[in-house]
């Protein structure tokens, strides 16, 4: 299962904190492993960016979350501040 398929099938979406979230309530095993794997790689990449920009990790997480949600294409899901999943 690729990330692009998971997104276009509406299984996963971008949360506001820069990480992937699972949209469906009973996700399959490979959706869960995909999200866990991608999020841990993202965290590591964010930590490197945070140290080279000289800012806290959370500033990178929040700013990239904002940009990823703005970049999300129509029909895919983003999570609103309240936690609800919204299709763009």
């Amino acid at each position, binding site marked *: 299962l690729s990330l692009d398929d998971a997104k276009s099938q509406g299984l996963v979406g971008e949360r506001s904190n820069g990480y992937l979230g699972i949209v469906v309530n009973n996700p399959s095993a490979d959706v869960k492993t995909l999200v866990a794997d991608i999020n841990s790689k993202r965290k590591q*990449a964010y930590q490197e*960016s945070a140290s080279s920009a000289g800012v806290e990790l959370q500033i990178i997480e929040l*700013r*990239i979350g904002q940009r990823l949600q703005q970049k999300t294409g129509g029909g895919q899901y983003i999570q609103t501040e309240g936690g609800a999943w919204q299709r763009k």
Partner: protein
Amino acid sequence: CTPTVQVAMPNEPITINLNVKIEHEILVKVDREIDSLLKENSNLF
């Protein structure tokens, strides 16, 4: 009568000229970092 000259306290104002340029480097730096991060790890996004 002879004019009296008062040596007033040096009270005329000190003039200070300044040029201040405010850069919003925190946002510029963070966005530049994120641009390269997105490029190098495109498989994660």
